[in-house]
């Protein structure tokens, strides 16, 4: 997910129970479950 969004490897967003990842301003970045296989 980080690579797909060009995020730094040390980016740590807030992970919600549905897999949504939010940045420190609470903005939706992506959903990590979309990248699991």
């Amino acid at each position, binding site marked *: 997910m980080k690579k797909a969004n*060009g995020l730094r490897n040390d980016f740590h967003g807030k992970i919600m129970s549905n*897999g949504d990842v939010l940045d420190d301003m609470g903005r939706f970045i992506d959903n990590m479950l979309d990248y699991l296989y």
Partner: protein
Amino acid sequence: MENENNLNYKIHCELILVSDNITSDKVSELMEIEPYRAYNKGESFQSKKSGTKGKRHNSLWAIKTEPIMTEEEDISSHVLYFKTLLENKIEKIKKLKVDPKNEISFWIWIETNAGGAGFEIPETDLKFINDISNRLSVSIVANENI
């Protein structure tokens, strides 16, 4: 567990430009290269799993090497691909690199069914990677079925 061909590493590299002020189309036009994936700041997207809708906070333009299956952690083949592709475009990409509203990363992605991975990058390749990117990222993913 090794696969039947004893190939333990599946490797690809990706050059990713993230920008706050230049569109992916503009990057394509400037570089004369079509990305394998791209999006633009403000574009809407939706998660397949959660259904959450969002808007892209930045533009992204990315090119990549094809994954290569090897017995050893060979990065040089991938660097050579970018050297050839970007041979006459180094100055263009350097200008993009120094713009504080852009960030370019060179990402090494290694999937392995071995116990670990280790590699070295020679000075000439390091210089090239430094010329074309602001940072180097490495991901090593343990995957039994590469």
